[in-house]
């Protein structure tokens, strides 16, 4: 028996040739939903944004756009209180989908039409990079908004809102806090 060593293609050093995995690269678009009055924000859910985005891409780029947006396009995270959305698309087509997002004028949810627009803040390759940007952005927002808060209660609710927008931790905090604290009055 001749020991071939690494020349045997079934040995561990050559296994990458057989099970070669093309890494599916994606882009995460971090967007903010801007509405004229914030009470409308609470009505949104991710399906509304998904249908609105698909419709906008289909309108702007026709059948080609509609086909592209059915590939690997999804809404990964939505925070209804701050209006932050993570959209995920394929790296090869994210520019096309991004270019159709400014044409969204309203979102529909359960028969109610909310006029709004999506403002893209950051494009990242992974959710972690988007989260890091979101932490920096939220600290900036806090610096802008805390001087404007007129009462202690508002300050606490502002702090809570922005801390809870961190995806991983936010789910735990948001579920346990009473809903009265969450309203931004």
């Amino acid at each position, binding site marked *: 028996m001749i020991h071939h060593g690494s020349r045997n293609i079934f040995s561990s050093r050559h296994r990458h040739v057989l099970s070669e995995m093309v890494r599916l690269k994606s882009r995460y678009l971090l967007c903010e939903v801007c509405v004229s009055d914030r009470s409308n924000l609470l009505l949104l859910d991710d399906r509304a944004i998904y249908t609105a985005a698909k419709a906008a891409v289909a309108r702007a780029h026709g059948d080609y756009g509609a086909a592209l947006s059915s590939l690997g396009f999804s809404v990964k995270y939505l925070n209804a209180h701050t209006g932050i959305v993570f959209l995920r698309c394929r790296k090869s087509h994210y520019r096309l989908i991004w270019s159709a997002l*400014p*044409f969204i004028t309203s979102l529909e949810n359960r028969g109610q039409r909310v006029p709004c627009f999506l403002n893209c803040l950051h494009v990242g390759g992974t959710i972690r990079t988007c989260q890091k940007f979101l932490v920096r952005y939220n600290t900036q927002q806090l610096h802008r908004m805390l001087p404007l808060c007129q009462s202690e209660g508002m300050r606490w609710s502002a702090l809570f809102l922005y801390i809870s927008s961190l995806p991983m931790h936010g789910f735990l905090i948001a579920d346990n806090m009473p809903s009265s604290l969450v309203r931004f009055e």
Partner: protein
Amino acid sequence: MAVFMDLNITYTTDKKRLRSVIETAAHLGYSTVAINYVVDLQQKKQEIGKPKCVLELFDTFPIVQGKSRPIKVLNRLTVVASDPSHFRPNAEYKAYDLVAVYPKTEKLFHAACMTFDVDIICVAVTEKQPFFFKRSPVNGAIERGVFFEISYTPAIRDSTMRRYTIANAISLMETCKGKNVIVTSGAEKPLELRGPYDIANLVLLFGLSEGDGKAAISTNCRAVHLHGETRKTALGIVHTMKKDQPLTERQEEEHVPVSKRAKIETV
């Protein structure tokens, strides 16, 4: 890619709406906006009035997202010209920081590119272009430092406007090769504004390259602002400002003959 500007916010007499538009612009990250007063001289002899003082709108300007400075608000005049006699630069134009013209015929477009004293030439987005862009006036305008403006809000409002916008924008890009172009909103409501990165991506549809798109909302806008400032100065060097002198000094100066008055240069 620091300073973003939006140089076209339609003036409305509704102060509240104007304030909310400017607040939204500050929230989105625009460092400078310009309130646009549109004057169409064909309709019933409209007068070119003075722009409203910007300080009337806000006590404290909203702070720009991501920076610590408040937003800067300029005044801009757009003259819709269908006749060569419509555009007559006179003292009223000096009250505005930026002057733009919207030519409706080929002759006016040629004259505006080569001779008129404007900063911005508006490209039609709400209708099919009645004339084609020719290389010679466009190149002349590029050499002079005049910029072409494309407004994106009609594209957001209506589908047929979208087609006209994209068609006219692409024909402009073919002639000017992406130089000297600015993209602005024509926002009347705060929901018609879009963020700067969104717009930089949207202009890829117009045929601009990525670098040109980013320049269209930042460096080119800044160049327009500076071009507007040079109109107020003499040859771009001396900047004069009206300074309120106290009454006593003025009366004293009147007594002294002109040749003996001290030559004062204030910078």
